[in-house]
């Protein structure tokens, strides 16, 4: 076993695939005829579920993620009395893959939810102070719920896209404050957005880098890294989400590639928001 291919399942098919993917990458090719650094086809549709305050469905190749947002009025956290709240939840639905099982969220869905949460929170995507009704008493609480519908690798990037796209089209009712009471009005307002974070997932195989791995590729890669960027090309989240090693001398190149791809994804995202 080569030093690069460490700690990974050693089944023959995976070893052969590992070699094959590497060989193709040396010619800038992939198993599905993409080049190393392109995403699969991206499709973003917004406002597809009428009962939500905002929703989006994103397909990235055969991977499909749906995001729905609903709000409630809640008491803010005591350390941030004048800020709204948002909570990200993710579920890997059993209909999406034979490797997903029904039941309470497992470690993979917890990880996914927390990575999406980190991208949105650290990029300060939502202007949470504008979601405060009565300081210390009542604020908007947004529930961002993600469901993986079809899983063909890389659920991080479409999940961040779906969450941010859904947030960008979310309309919540405006509440009036009268004598310390909160009254729902007929009018609605958009969620005040300050940034539009995206994430880019890369695969590393020996000294080669690829973007947006499929399920087939994921099993045979040396490592998988997800990197979140805000609109000013700052890194806002990183997650090495699988076993395996990343050679130190590759990391600068990985970040550079990820930044370029993040700009590309954000362009797609902004197009779909303005159209949708």
């Amino acid at each position, binding site marked *: 076993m080569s*030093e690069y291919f*460490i*700690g990974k*399942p*050693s*089944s023959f098919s995976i070893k052969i695939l590992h070699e094959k993917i590497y060989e193709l990458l040396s010619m800038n090719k992939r198993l599905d005829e993409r080049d190393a650094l392109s995403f699969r086809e991206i499709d973003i549709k917004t406002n597809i579920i009428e009962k939500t305050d905002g929703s989006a469905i994103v397909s990235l190749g055969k991977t499909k993620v749906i995001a729905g947002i609903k709000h409630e009025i809640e008491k803010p956290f005591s*350390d*941030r009395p004048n800020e709204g709240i948002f909570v990200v939840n993710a579920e890997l639905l059993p209909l999406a893959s034979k490797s997903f099982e029904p039941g309470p969220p497992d*470690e*993979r869905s*917890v*990880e996914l*939810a*927390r990575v999406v949460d*980190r991208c949105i929170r*650290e*990029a300060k995507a939502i202007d949470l102070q504008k979601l405060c009704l009565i300081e210390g008493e009542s604020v908007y609480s947004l529930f961002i719920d993600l469901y993986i519908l079809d899983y063909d690798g890389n659920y991080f990037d479409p999940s961040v896209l779906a969450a941010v796209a859904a947030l960008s089209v979310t309309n919540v009712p405006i509440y009036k404050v009268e004598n310390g009471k909160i009254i729902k009005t007929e009018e609605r307002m958009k969620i005040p957005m300050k940034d539009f974070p995206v994430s880019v997932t890369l695969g590393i195989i020996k000294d080669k880098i690829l973007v947006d791995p499929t399920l087939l590729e994921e099993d045979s890669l040396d490592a998988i*890294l997800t990197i979140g960027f*805000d609109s000013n*090309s*700052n*890194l*806002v*989240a*990183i*997650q*090495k*989400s*699988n*076993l*395996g*090693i*990343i*050679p*130190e*001398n590759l*990391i*600068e190149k990985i*970040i*550079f590639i990820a*930044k370029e791809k993040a700009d590309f994804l954000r362009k797609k995202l902004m197009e779909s928001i303005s159209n949708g």
Partner: protein
Amino acid sequence: MENKGIKLINEDGKRIDGRLYNELRPIKMEVGVLEKSDGSAYVEQGKTKIFAAVFGPKELHPRHLALPDRAVINCRYHMASFSVEERKQLGMTRREIELSKVIRHALETAVFLEKFPRAGIDVFIEVIQADGGTRVAGLNAASLALADAGIYMRDLVVGCAVGKVDGRIVLDLCDIEDKYGEADMPIAFSPRLNSILLLQLNGKLSIEEFNEAIKLAKEGCMKIYELMKETLKKKYSYIIMEEE
């Protein structure tokens, strides 16, 4: 979290606990601290205090999870209820579930799993006091415990946190710096493989800052790596002395 007027780095470049930007907190390490486990370790890094224990390789339960060609690592990172400022609720939080997963991945990469087909290796990390950098200190403790248990490894996994505080990249964040700073980035290396085994980022860093942070983390990790090796050697030097 917003910095509410707390100055985390003063004019002399000293941090809130008097350290320079590239200084680690005092570290104490010991192996073989728990009697009943196959391998154990205690790590203290500033006020962060962590025990780790390893059981195995042993028969895996439930059995259907066993893999025919390698061992399975079961890793639990857990914080004691009293380890944090406000009492933590009992049971595993979402944060603990995520951290258990990333720590496991780092260890799985370092251990020669293929030497123990069908077996299970349990790794338990208990944070008894948390003051920043618990996942990396826990990982260091776990890799010491694995070595103490005599489990074959490619290398010791050595982790360290870097971050951005008051606009500067600093090494080994304490709790206040983590809370009020701009970014926290835990990293774990394998010095022998020249590779990164764990990498997470929580917060905002520019690409230049990221590159600087990686370099600083590597420096810190190399110092911790030496300490870890010494800790393991010390245990066996005692054994040799006793035999004589």
